[in-house]
């Protein structure tokens, strides 16, 4: 991890919602809880006494349960929400004292934002959405198209420029949201639960993509989530919030091993430490697999040609892992007019879903084919390639 200088600094930040803020602040000083203050004054505590130092090039995760104040804190950083009290510095500039116009210029230059429900304009195409920030900046048309095309390509949506958001899947919509943020070439990305609305498989893909992308773009990212696994996966450092307060800030190790209070412990409780990076986190889905009870050598050859691969994994009808077949054996079986795969299946080592990276590494080093991942029932879950492991190992050792 690159240890850059602090670029965003939040000091003693408060945000209260409601009328009687003075009294609520006083009660807060006297140690009343969020709920007591709400009952007494009708004021909701959004954020209380938050302090953050966000460093260049890191993905800083803010995590907490629903209502803990994550979104509010994030929006105080670009002043979409006006803080009640406290200081925010971005690039050593005090943004609280800016007037509206200065603030707008600052936002254009510094921030890209990604939203939980994508925040795409339904009446604009993919291209139109990605261009939005540039249009606001009055960038001329040619340059706008160029930057947007670039951003669209970075998120892997080339060819979809003219589609309307309504015709895209959730994952693709969020790619558009991300491309819109990338297109403006801002220094900071603010991401408010960008993957929470996606289903688990797509979510994992998107996390991988983000990590991959970050290697290239090296932005400073503030990423919100309520999911500890996600926080551990994408985050360089993590802050945990509760009732508007930041209860702990630290890297993975610190969060997992030195949980500062019961709240964090509870959060961390069911995360097995070795699961931080285990097989399940880094495995990928195969293009296709073969089922012993229905697929013969001909199907196998057809599929291999289709996906341009020279091996395939074979399962029984309950998706239990049996072994793999290679293309030479399949061709031979066809020549010998065999109709089943049974004779040519090769056994291989397998990895369990919760095996850690070091184990996986030693298992795969002298394998010429990817390592299949199975669960405790021997059900096939995915596969791991050498590149998978190596990219993740290097991340782990940073």
């Amino acid at each position, binding site marked *: 991890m690159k240890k850059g200088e602090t670029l965003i600094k939040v000091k003693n930040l408060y945000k209260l919602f409601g009328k009687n803020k003075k009294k609520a602040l006083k009660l807060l000083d006297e140690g009343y809880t969020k709920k007591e203050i709400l009952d007494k004054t009708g004021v909701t505590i959004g954020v209380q006494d938050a302090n953050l130092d966000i460093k260049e090039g890191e993905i800083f995760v803010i995590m907490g349960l629903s209502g803990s104040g994550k979104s509010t804190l994030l*929006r105080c950083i*670009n002043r*979409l929400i006006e803080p009640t009290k406290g200081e925010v510095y971005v690039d050593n500039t005090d943004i609280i004292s800016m007037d509206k*116009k200065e603030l*707008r*210029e*600052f*936002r*254009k230059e510094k*921030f*890209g*934002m990604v*939203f*939980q*429900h*994508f*925040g795409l*304009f*339904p*009446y*604009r195409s993919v291209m139109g959405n990605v261009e*939005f*920030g540039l*249009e*606001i*900046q009055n960038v001329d048309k040619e340059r706008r198209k160029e930057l947007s095309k670039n951003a669209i390509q970075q998120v892997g949506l080339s060819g979809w420029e003219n589609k309307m958001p309504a015709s895209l899947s959730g994952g693709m919509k969020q790619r558009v949201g991300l491309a*819109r943020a990338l297109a*403006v070439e801002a220094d900071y990305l*603010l991401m408010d639960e960008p993957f929470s609305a996606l289903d688990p498989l797509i979510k994992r893909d998107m996390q991988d993509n983000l990590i991959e992308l970050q290697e290239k773009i090296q932005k400073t990212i503030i990423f919100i989530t309520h999911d500890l696994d996600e926080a551990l996966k994408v985050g360089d450092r993590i802050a945990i919030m509760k009732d508007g307060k930041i209860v702990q800030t630290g890297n993975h190790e610190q969060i997992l091993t030195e949980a500062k209070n019961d709240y964090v412990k509870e959060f961390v409780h069911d995360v097995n430490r070795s699961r931080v990076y285990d097989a399940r986190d880094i495995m990928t889905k195969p293009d296709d697999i073969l089922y012993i009870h229905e697929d013969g050598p001909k199907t196998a050859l057809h599929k291999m040609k289709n996906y341009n691969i020279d091996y395939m994994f074979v399962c029984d009808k309950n998706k239990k892992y049996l072994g793999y077949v290679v293309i030479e054996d399949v061709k031979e079986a066809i020549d010998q007019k065999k109709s089943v795969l049974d004779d040519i299946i090769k056994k291989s080592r397998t990895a369990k879903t919760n095996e850690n990276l070091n184990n996986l590494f030693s298992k795969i080093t002298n394998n010429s084919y990817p390592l299949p991942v199975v669960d405790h029932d021997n059900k096939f879950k995915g596969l791991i390639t050498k590149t998978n492991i190596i990219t993740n190992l290097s991340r782990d050792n940073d």
Partner: protein
Amino acid sequence: MTLSFISMMPVEKIPLGDWIESFVNFLVNNFSGPFNAFSNLISTLISGFESGLSFLPPIVLILIFAVIAYKRKGWGLSIFVIIGFGLLWNLQLWPELLTTLSSIITSVLVALIIGIPIGIIKAHSKIVHHITRPILDFMQTIPPFVYLIPALMFFGLGTVSGVIATVVFAIAPPIRLTYLGIIQIPDELKEAGEAYGANPWQMLYKVEIPGALPSIMMGINQCIMLALSMVVIAAMIGAGGLGKIVLRSLSVVDIGMGFEAGIGIVIIAIALDRMFGKKDDKDTK
């Protein structure tokens, strides 16, 4: 019996009618300048549209309408327009048709030019919202006939008064639906606008108006329909066109004549409703 109960009201009759009359008189006497200017503007608009439309031979105009109808909705509506307007031409109602069309276009145009901005302001200002809400409720519950009297007093007998009464009657939907369209834009979209540094003007024309457009279109459609429903009523204060014929046929009990003009109004209503309704029919094809 009942009569004696009514006369038992202990308080003397409040001269409400007199008050209103003197208030209106006050306005008429002191603001005749602006009223006249407005009246002139409206009548210029009407006669402009009317002479513009009658400059073209009926057949050309029908074809133009048919092309617009085709562009908006497809063949069905296009054929309907040709047959419907052809029928009116054949029934020798063409001049009346043009008069009615021009006053509807003028009324709707004025209602939209005033109504949509009010709707936008209403969506941004709580004060304006709270002021306009009861007024709009009031305007929508009052029977349209009631608008005729002040319109008559301010602008005299004639098509201009008819248009003004129509504008007042038809302005509520564009205001309401523009307002609704803007406030129902999801927060995330407004935040996206703000987060990328849009100024209020950019927010308006890049986020709010396009986001509210479906709703605004609905407002325009309803505005047109209300304006059409005023055609006959406006004729009571001297507006010309198809409404006038319907009204005349009522007074002389000429069923045939009333029916012909009535059909004319229905044809315009259907054509305009389809042309300025949602554009979806054709898009889904």
